[in-house]
């Protein structure tokens, strides 16, 4: 049996490995150049302390050892998994209980089978792209990326041809084209995942207007590069304020609680404190939802001196050298004006934009925000496509999403026992 997994994030990869281990042929379709999804850009996770991710290691049978190992080292060497990166599903047609899917693969401009990751092209590339979060050349590779080959960002590439000259394996082709593939599969797993909502529409919080108002995911990317102290846009940051429940728990935008923002806000607060103990951190919250064992993070943050203000800020004013936040401290019953250098918004988590198309093609119903409701016998929803989950829950949900495709082992004896149980029930509860 052949199964397609749509989305190569944490959930999609977990599901693929499970299925591959059971001997199925798996195709992973990922729209980005590298596998990993949201997790690729967040280098530390909250389930374990000291900050590391142990959950993935547990689930990885064959390759043990380091964190993220499970998709970094394992997945592209598994024989019955086929990976399409830079690819999207164009069409799905049902034919006699099987699916005919059309996959469009955008050009990478580097041949995946030839590139040996020698870094020569990157050294000679004259185009440098730098933003707040990273610095890279026009030909680049993600350090932890799979497949471990280079990609050309064609929008910024000047087509000078220098990389072509140094490439020993002739892997680079600047005239690469879009390709269309067709695959016939029996089952589909949808693992399209989530993304962070960019709160441009909450104008009072100045997101997109001030370069010192960022989201938690952006902070995570910045944090992954800081060694000593926090510097954003050239400004040394001494005071940070995080705002929880931005756009989520808001009846005009997203009514639901995004579930994990409290936890990664706490995680970032702790990371910041460990980076530089002098940084003042405020968290403006309504309720801290550190459920279950995660209470550890809440108490840890308090012990490290993170200042908690119960209240949702009214507005942020931008001044020359700082931002002024107006927030009612509802426990003190006092309107406070706090001057900070950086504001971090814990914005709502919403279904991935591209998931809507997939749900439509497959006829899967969604709620008003685009989270998938239910799955059928031949389609299964995995991970955060159906609701926001943290890493452990995502892994568990991915595993369970594969279960119904596995061949059940029901012997004659088990069948007989079941029938007996049903008969007993009838006898006992006859009305």
């Amino acid at each position, binding site marked *: 049996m052949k199964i397609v997994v749509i989305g190569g994030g944490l959930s999609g990869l977990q599901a693929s490995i499970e299925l591959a281990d059971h001997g199925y042929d798996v195709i992973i379709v990922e729209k980005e150049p590298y596998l990993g999804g949201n997790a690729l850009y967040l280098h530390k996770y909250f389930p374990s302390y000291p900050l590391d991710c142990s959950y993935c290691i547990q689930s990885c049978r064959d390759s043990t050892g380091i964190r993220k190992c499970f998709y970094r080292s394992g997945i592209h060497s598994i024989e019955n998994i086929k990976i399409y990166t830079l690819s999207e599903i164009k069409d799905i047609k049902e034919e006699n209980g099987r699916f005919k899917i059309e996959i469009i693969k955008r050009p990478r401009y580097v041949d995946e089978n030839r590139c040996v990751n020698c870094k020569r092209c990157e050294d000679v590339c004259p185009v440098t792209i730098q933003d707040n979060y990273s610095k890279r050349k026009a030909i680049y590779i993600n350090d932890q990326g799979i497949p471990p080959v280079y990609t050309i960002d064609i929008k910024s590439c000047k087509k000078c041809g220098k990389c072509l000259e140094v490439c020993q394996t002739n892997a680079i082709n600047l005239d690469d084209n879009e390709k269309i593939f067709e695959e016939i599969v029996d089952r589909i797993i949808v693992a399209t995942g989530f993304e962070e909502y960019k709160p441009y529409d909450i104008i009072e919080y100045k997101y997109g207007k001030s370069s010192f108002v960022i989201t938690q995911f952006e902070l995570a990317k910045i944090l992954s590069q800081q060694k000593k102290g926090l510097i954003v846009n050239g400004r040394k940051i001494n005071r940070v304020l995080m705002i929880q*429940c931005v756009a989520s728990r808001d*009846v*005009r935008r997203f009514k639901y609680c995004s579930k994990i923002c409290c936890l990664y806000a706490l995680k970032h607060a702790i990371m910041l404190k460990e980076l530089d103990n002098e940084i003042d951190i405020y968290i403006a919250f309504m309720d801290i939802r550190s459920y279950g064992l995660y209470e550890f993070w809440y108490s840890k943050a308090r012990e490290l001196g993170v200042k908690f203000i119960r209240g949702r*800020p*009214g507005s942020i004013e931008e001044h020359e050298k700082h931002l002024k936040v*107006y*927030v009612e401290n*509802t426990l003190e019953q006092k309107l406070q004006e706090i001057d900070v250098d950086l504001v971090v918004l814990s914005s709502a988590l919403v279904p991935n934009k591209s998931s809507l198309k997939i749900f439509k093609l497959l006829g899967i119903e969604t709620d008003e925000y685009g989270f998938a409701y239910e799955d059928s016998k031949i389609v299964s929803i995995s991970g955060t496509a159906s609701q926001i989950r943290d890493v452990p829950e995502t892994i568990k949900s991915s595993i369970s999403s594969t279960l119904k495709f596995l061949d059940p082992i029901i012997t004659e004896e088990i069948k007989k026992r079941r029938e007996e149980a049903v008969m007993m029930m009838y006898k006992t509860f006859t009305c």
Partner: protein
Amino acid sequence: MLASQVQKISGENPLACYQCGNCTGSCPMEFVMDYGPRRLIHLLQIGYDDEVLKSNTIWICASCYNCTYRCPRKISFTRMAFALKNIAMKKNIIPKKCKAFYETFLKHVLNYGRLNESLFINELVLKGGKDFSEIVRDINLGIKLWRKGKLKMKISKIDGVKDIVKLYNLTKDVIK
């Protein structure tokens, strides 16, 4: 209970508030209120009705709708404040200056159908709607307005005054 009365008049449910404080954080008048909007709603929720009606908050609310615009629960404190003012006024719990202002305003609407601003200000001063220090402060302004010819002594009165009074009498007892 006051909360349900407020809901009936304004259509806003104070019990739906989850106390985030966005309203107080957005309120331009918070610095002169004895309770901020968020705290007033909390007092409403737990049934401290006297404190709510006696607070100066509702009279200070400038009706700018800033809290309404930003409320994540889509509740309007501004409209709740209107309802609370209705109730407080029925119970005659009202600061002296406000009483003079609202009574004079209503009188104008019922007598002329419109507000005659110049006359309104005069009457207000006579009724004690302004402190002595404020009158002294504003005298210069008054003279200037007079010189500019902005103060009009002609009274405008609409034909439908009777209708207005009729409408008022119909709705007078809606609030108990």
